[in-house]
């Protein structure tokens, strides 16, 4: 078959067509890869990056503001904050620390929940299993417990700071009440957690704690006016707390449920309210300019 020539004089045989096409194809591939490589040099431009981080992270103010406002986690902060409020000196970082400890506790707590069964037979055994068999088990349990103690300390010191800095005054009264409630919830969280290892220390600590409950006036079978209202060891408030007249399997289960599900949920809700009101009541309360007696209204 003779070589036909096409308009511009190149051979137009089938073989030649093929060769031509393949060459073109090669060109396209080469350019495409170069583009891709170029793109990789600037990751922010890639579609993947832009899909995740909706805004660019330049140094300019707009992006700085956007980086907090548009971010699910950071938009707890306002875009800008009073310059002195960034100092440790004022807030001592205690509110943040408490919240951070809460997150650590939730994280380590969930990990512990993988191994712990809240039954009388298996509770102690699981703690031993954690201590000796589970890799990092002992570290996990220690972290959880010491974080709990740290959180209680942090909550108290946070309250101390808020009071000392007068940050409970108008308009933050309600937020102070929510704060107090959160402190109580923290104490309850720690108290119910104390019983879970089902060892002598926890058992007797909780027994002492709940013995006070039986003395509640009107509701406790040993409190004033309690027996008159027909309170017996089997239907008073202590029984409700323990799910029994002594600290045993039911108490363990109830403590477990309170500790792992009920109180953390309630606490998270109130933390949400607390953070929300911090922002709504004007963000960090200080260090605001001092006022003089004269300047107060009569």
């Amino acid at each position, binding site marked *: 078959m003779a070589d036909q020539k096409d308009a511009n004089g190149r051979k137009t045989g089938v073989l030649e067509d093929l060769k031509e096409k393949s060459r073109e194809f090669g060109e396209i591939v080469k350019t495409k890869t170069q583009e891709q490589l170029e793109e990789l040099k600037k990751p922010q431009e890639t579609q993947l990056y832009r899909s995740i981080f909706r805004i660019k992270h330049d140094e300019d103010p707009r992006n700085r503001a956007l980086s907090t406002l548009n971010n699910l986690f950071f938009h707890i902060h306002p875009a800008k904050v009073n310059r002195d409020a960034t100092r440790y000196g004022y807030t001592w970082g205690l509110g943040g620390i408490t919240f951070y400890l809460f997150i650590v506790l939730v994280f380590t707590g969930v990990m512990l929940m993988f191994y712990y069964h809240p039954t009388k037979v298996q509770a102690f055994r699981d703690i031993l299993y954690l201590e000796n068999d589970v890799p990092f088990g002992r570290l996990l349990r220690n972290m959880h417990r010491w974080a709990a103690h740290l959180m209680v300390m942090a909550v108290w010191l946070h309250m101390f700071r808020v009071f000392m800095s007068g940050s409970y005054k108008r308009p933050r*009264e309600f937020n102070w009440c929510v704060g107090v409630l959160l402190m109580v919830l923290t104490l309850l969280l720690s108290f119910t957690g104390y019983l879970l290892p089902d*060892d*002598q220390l*926890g058992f*007797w600590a909780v027994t002492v704690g709940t013995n006070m409950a039986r003395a*509640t006036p009107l509701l406790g079978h040993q409190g004033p006016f309690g027996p008159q209202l027909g309170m017996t060891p089997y239907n008073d408030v202590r029984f409700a707390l323990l799910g029994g007249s*002594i600290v045993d399997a039911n108490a363990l289960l109830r403590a477990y449920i309170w500790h792992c599900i009920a109180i953390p949920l309630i606490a998270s809700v109130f933390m949400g309210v607390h953070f929300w009101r911090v922002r709504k009541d004007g963000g960090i309360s200080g260090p605001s300019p001092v006022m003089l007696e004269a300047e107060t209204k009569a």
Partner: protein
Amino acid sequence: MFGDWHQLWVIISTPDNIPIVAMLGLVPFFTWYAFHNMLANDRLIAQLEADPQLARTHHRTTYPYNSRWERELHTNPFLMRKELLAAIIITIILMVWALTLNAPLEEPANASVTMNPAKAPWYFLGLQEMLEYFDPWIAGVIVPTLIIVGLMAIPFIDANPLGNGYYTYHQRRHAVWTFLIGFEGLWLVLVCIGTFIRGPGFMWYWPTQTWDPDRVEFNVNRNLDQIFGINGNWLVHILPASLRPEAVIIARALFGIIPMVVYGIAAALFIHWICMRTEYSRTVYRKMSILQTVTMYIFLITMLFVPVTIFLRLVFRIKYIWETPWFSI
């Protein structure tokens, strides 16, 4: 016997007492630091009050100020980096603590073997300590609820507008002192006693005194009415026949009201005197509504009642001030 430093070390190094020992370090530091800020602001306030001209232009904080500086900084780098640093430091503390000290794990729970002393977790030791002085219903239920409700009521009672958002001692002297007494003076001190002082049998062990489970301590607490020898024999003639056998009890119950009333009046006068001490406090005091004053009085009186009872018990061995068949304080 005293001088048993090992015993003191054992108490301090018990894993679950570490937090209160840490608090013994942290609370004084933070109190000092709070007062440091307060005094700085007070000096500024005094300065401003002395020179009204300055007051008009001053940026009113003790921190360095330059009109050219931005009043508000971006959260992103400036606040967040601080938070990141705080988070890392806390994690470090936590990990070091977790790696060095192990969480306690004692024998499996056994209802038949009581631990001596059986102590509540460290943060409730205050309440457990109060059990020594009050009946469980007061120590276990009334006082904690009053504390919580009291704390919540503070912003609504404190009519003093000053000090809102800055540390000041001079302008909020009463509030600061009330809180310090309530939080540190009572709550933390009682927790410390519950931890360091209360040993086996929940008896009083001075620091460096050996905790001996077999210790026998003789202390007889008597009621106030027993001290005054109330036996109600003069009451017998007055009472109707049916109540005559219970004459003694009724007499005591009636007698008990007197010291309570006396204390109440004394405490109220004392609080009133405190509120009226400075001119400014008088204006604030006058500004408070009836409801605010009544709640303030109630809370402060009950709060003061606790140290008074503790004092009566520890020094004079008085058990109950007012004893009635249904309850006793």
